[in-house]
């Protein structure tokens, strides 16, 4: 797990998340190096998505800290208040997110979905933003979708539009929250291929996933969570060969990977 610490892009330190008085994430620490793909796997309810959402404070951590490129992120004001959201904008510009249910803007075309934040967040002019959006859509094989509304596209296409939307903002890291869980199995391959492509280009990714094949083939590191804690993990090849804990072994057996 230890590499050159100077290359650590994201450091999650002792982060906890509490829902209804119960710690769903319990003092978890995790590092992601620049250019690395880290997969978070584990049973449902393990706290994987909650942990992921703390990275850009869509979920306010109850304790612990988030560091990006060596700097701690400190939101101001009451969680959910305008001041709070405003204070996080600088951090969030650097972190892309791809959601399980895509969360595209349903009234905007695919192209407009990819353009809107470029214009209002990065201050690019419309022509420049459009050109960039088309390039990203093309890169993800979505040329024919550009003029369509999300509802007119398949699940696999919608998720790739969401990836294009994130990429167009040049994030330093992209968080993926179960990116294929809401997609027909036959269409999830096109999303996984897109993720593979990004990994090959050296884009830093933190991916919560149930796709063991993806974790095994694409991720550099695997983190296995259960009951709100990291209970196992390591370099992906080693982990899938020989998980060191009984809990991880049981999980991998249950999903037919061991």
């Amino acid at each position, binding site marked *: 797990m230890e590499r050159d610490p100077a290359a650590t892009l994201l450091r999650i330190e002792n982060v906890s998340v509490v829902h209804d008085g119960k710690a769903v994430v319990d003092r978890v620490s995790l590092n992601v190096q620049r250019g690395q793909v880290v997969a978070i796997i584990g049973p449902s309810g393990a706290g994987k998505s909650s942990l992921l959402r703390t990275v*850009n404070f869509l979920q306010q951590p109850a304790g612990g800290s988030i560091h990006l490129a060596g700097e701690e992120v400190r939101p101001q004001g009451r969680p959910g208040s305008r001041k709070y959201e*405003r204070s996080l904008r600088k951090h969030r510009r650097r972190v892309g997110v791809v959601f399980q249910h895509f*969360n*595209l803007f349903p009234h905007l075309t695919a192209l407009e979905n990819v353009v809107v934040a470029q214009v209002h*967040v990065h201050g690019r002019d419309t022509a420049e933003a459009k050109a960039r959006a088309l390039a990203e859509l093309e890169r993800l094989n979505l040329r024919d979708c550009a003029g369509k509304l999300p509802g007119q596209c398949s699940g696999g296409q919608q998720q790739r539009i969401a990836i294009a939307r994130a990429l167009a903002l040049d994030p330093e890291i992209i968080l993926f929250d179960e990116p294929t869980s809401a997609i027909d199995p036959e269409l999830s391959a096109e999303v996984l291929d897109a993720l593979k492509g990004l990994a090959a280009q050296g884009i830093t990714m933190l991916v919560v996933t149930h796709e063991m094949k993806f974790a095994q083939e694409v991720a550099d590191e695997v983190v296995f969570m259960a009951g709100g804690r990291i209970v196992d993990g390591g370099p992906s090849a080693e982990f899938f060969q020989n998980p060191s804990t009984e809990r991880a072994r049981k999980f991998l057996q249950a999903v037919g990977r061991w």
Partner: protein
Amino acid sequence: MDVLFHGLLGALANTVGITLGALLVGLVLAVPVTWAARSTSPAVSGAAVAFIQIVRSVPVLVWLFLIYFGLGGGMLPLPPFGAAVAGLGIVSSAYVAEIYRSGLAAIPAGQRDAIHSLALPAGPALRRILLPQLLPIVLPPLSSYTIGLLKDSALASIIGVKDLTAIGYDNAQTNMNGLLTFTIIGLIYIGLSVPVAALSRHVGNKVAARA
């Protein structure tokens, strides 16, 4: 028509004026009320929710009396027309705030997650993302409310506004034909509300066609 039905055009103008005036006051005033009701500060949101509750719990006519006879008695002299617009406008703001609030609640939480994760500032997020999705949700209840408001505007006749209802009353006193007079008045109210419903359907269809 004005010869047959004394003062009809002026009355029509008063009814339409009160309705549109009160609607405008309500639509605008409801924005800060909604904003306050959604505040993360319990004091601010509590005050807004209390305002909505209080306004809706008191009969509209009592609000009109309070503003016309109460405030108008000395503190803030208002002509009947102005008092009617103010009273119905304040009442509208509470109802419209509830319409805005339920509309915002109907937008999936994932949209807010997307807005935040893209770091969209509040202004563009509202203009480009939330309002276009809010409009088709709030339009039908807003048009129903407008039709209700048109009918409530008849209460202004009690504080002395010469609106359709008041003119109907005056004419019935002189022509001694209440049935015919108020049938005509009723038909005029119907004639005014039909376009509101039609407009709402038209805009609704247009928005639906885009989605």
